């Protein structure tokens, strides 16, 4: 008969070892038998949609979620097929992804990096999501992208415009369809020169965070290259709501253009304040005073109301585009939800389809195989003309839209009009200029 010698120290040791094992994230342990993280073994595959469901970008997040739900419906063979009908790749058959029914889970980023990482982690560890996508902020995108790299899943970014997402913070497991600050500057500058001349003095108000800096730098570089002078660049706190004390001194500076490097609520408030101060009614240096908003979104334009009229900006996509892909998406989304999709909805829908297509072409859900299928992938029919997923930085290169606030909108969605479709060649840059290293793909196993 054996005798068990139970000592206090022994029990504590055993408990500690067992506890460590139990507490260790399943992300690092549960995959040991699989080839890669969350390898789908049943008849379905789970995608993780990580969008802002609460907080200031909740409306944008809701539109992203609508787009994802539409994409899932189309991938599973429902609805009218949407962009699958116009997509140049014909790998998707409407039978899920590789024959597995597409299911999804959602997370709430709250537009906070820590909350977004927590929700992404939960979807990967608890729900078995094989891919994470979505978001409305560059800070969130960079944070979630890093998490997905560590976890060994693919991250298909949602709305993120900072150069850093596919620049200094790029990762091998992360991919961005949305355009970036550099492209906005490169697309806007010639239009601004044509409309306002090359002898202008610009005053920048810049949101005091990463996206603001990269946007200011991009617009400054592009406009200074065509002859504009930057008389001042002032950083404004992200939490600022009343911009009067920043806008009032603009006219005293001798500037005749105000560039608002703001997004979301910041942009709505700063533009509203600038128009209130009557800046656009003023004549400075014998020129009409002008305002520029480098990045527009429909929801921002809606929030700013009539103040956007006649103001130039850039956007990734717009529902009024007349190519077959855009028309198919607007028809599909509009029929289902009763209103046209936003650019956030478009980029998220396209990202979901691009991921599914890459899996089909790779013949595997392995993130490294998917990444390889996406790298250097050229496609068309998704609403932005011919597009390249550049292998060097996982950034999509496609036409960029320059838009202007519409003078006579016919509805609450008809707020912007397309002024110019800037060709890809004009917004393409060397992949090395923003630094960073992709590193190696991580399958997570």
């Amino acid at each position, binding site marked *: 008969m054996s005798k068990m010698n139970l000592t206090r120290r022994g029990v504590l040791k055993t408990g500690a070892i067992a506890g460590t094992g139990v507490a260790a994230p399943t992300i690092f342990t549960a995959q040991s038998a699989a080839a890669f993280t969350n390898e789908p073994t049943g008849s379905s595959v789970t995608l993780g949609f990580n969008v802002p469901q*609460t907080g200031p970008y*909740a409306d944008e997040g809701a539109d992203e979620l609508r787009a994802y739900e539409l994409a899932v419906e189309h991938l599973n063979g429902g609805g009218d097929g949407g962009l699958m009908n116009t997509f140049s790749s014909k790998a998707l058959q409407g039978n899920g992804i590789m024959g597995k029914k597409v299911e999804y889970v959602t997370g709430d980023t709250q537009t906070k990096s820590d909350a977004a990482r927590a929700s992404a982690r939960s979807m990967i560890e608890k729900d078995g999501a094989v891919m994470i996508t979505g978001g409305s902020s560059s800070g969130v995108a960079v944070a979630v992208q890093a998490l997905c790299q560590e976890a060994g899943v693919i991250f298909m970014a949602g709305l993120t415009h900072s150069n850093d997402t596919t620049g200094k913070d790029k990762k091998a497991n992360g991919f961005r369809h949305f355009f970036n600050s550099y492209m906005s500057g490169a697309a806007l500058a010639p239009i601004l020169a044509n409309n306002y001349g090359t002898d202008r003095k610009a005053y920048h108000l810049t949101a005091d965070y990463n996206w603001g800096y990269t946007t200011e730098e991009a617009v400054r570089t592009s406009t200074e290259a065509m002859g504009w002078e930057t008389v001042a660049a002032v950083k404004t*706190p992200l939490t600022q709501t009343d911009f009067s004390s920043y806008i009032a001194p603009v006219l005293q500076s001798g500037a005749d253009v105000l560039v608002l490097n703001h997004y979301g609520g910041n942009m709505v*408030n700063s533009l509203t304040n600038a128009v209130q101060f009557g800046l656009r009614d003023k004549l400075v240096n014998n020129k009409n005073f002008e305002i520029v908003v480098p990045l527009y979104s429909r929801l921002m334009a809606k929030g700013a109301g009539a103040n956007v009229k006649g103001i130039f900006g850039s956007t990734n996509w717009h*529902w*009024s585009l007349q190519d077959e892909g855009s028309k198919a998406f607007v028809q599909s989304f509009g029929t289902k939800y009763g209103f046209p999709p936003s650019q956030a909805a478009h980029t998220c829908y396209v990202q979901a389809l691009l991921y599914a297509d890459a899996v089909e072409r790779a013949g595997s859900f392995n993130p490294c195989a998917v990444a390889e299928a996406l790298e250097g992938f050229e496609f068309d029919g998704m609403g932005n003309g011919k597009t390249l997923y550049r292998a060097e930085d996982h950034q999509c290169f496609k036409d960029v839209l320059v838009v202007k606030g519409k003078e006579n909108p*016919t509805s609450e969605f008809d707020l912007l009009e397309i002024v110019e479709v800037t060709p890809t060649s004009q917004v393409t840059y060397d992949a090395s200029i923003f630094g960073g290293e992709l590193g190696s793909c991580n399958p997570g196993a």
Partner: protein
Amino acid sequence: MEAIVLQILNGLDKGSAYALIALGLTLIFGTLGVVNFAHGALFMIGAFCAVTLSRILTLSHTVVDETQKDFLGNPLKVDVPYMMDWFGESTGAAIIDWAVPLSILFAIPVMIAIGVIMERGLIKHFYKRPHADQILVTFGLAIVLQEIIKYYYGANPIPTPAPAAFKGSFDFGAMMGFDPNTIIYPYWRIIYFAFAAVIIGAVFAFLQFTTFGMVVRAGMADRETVQLLGINIDRRFTLMFGIAAAVAGLAGVMYTPINSPNYHMGMDFLVLSFVVVVVGGMGSLPGAVAAGFLLGILESFASMREVLAVLPGLNQIIIYLVAIIILLTRPRGLMGRKGVMED
């Protein structure tokens, strides 16, 4: 010189909002002894009273315009407000255009009712509880209220413009002999400042020159003695809560053309308003108003490019820096009285 005048003007309208919210906070604290963290939410609800009235005035029926197409290529459905049907195009459009000023009349009874319901329904149960409990329950209430607003109105800001007659700006510089365009100031912000001055004057006059106000002031000084005289001070204090809610609500109504209202705007003002109350002196109405304007003006100066070039980031901390200095040198705030919140 022009820059200084400009920033003082900026500070005055910013200070107007701080002063109005802080005035309501101080009224509630002075009468009921409650630290009301839901006060910012009342400011936000006031703003949404303007949004609501604006939507009521633009209630429409749909007319199909065969000459235009919608985004799906179908004949465009155009909304025609009933106001235009009932009063004609120009009069109807004018009524809709004046939605924000008209909202003042709409907001006063609504905000008083909300204030009274809030006080009777929830806050009265926390009179004898520690301030920490009051802060927790009112902060929780603020979050509930903003989530309700978000549920019904969405998270996106809703443009609520001023009447067309008040759009644009006034050239103070030209009037004062400076170069044109050096000191410009929006008409609506001038109106906001004047409106705040009238409301603050009305509250002080109400407390100073009416019997009701006299009883309230007596109750604020010595609640027990007033009750021993057979006066139902609780009922008067409840009404004061309603009046404080209306003051915050009116501040919110008139603020809507300055910044498009959103569900979070109350929280944006809440912390700053508490700093204003503390700097002004807990329980001191003149202190709250003076501190509101003082901090508004200092905040404007701290945002100047020239100041930020020397002290980067000062704009983000100026209010808290001033609060620290005031509390170190005058622990009871600018006009605080001995014994208030010192037990």
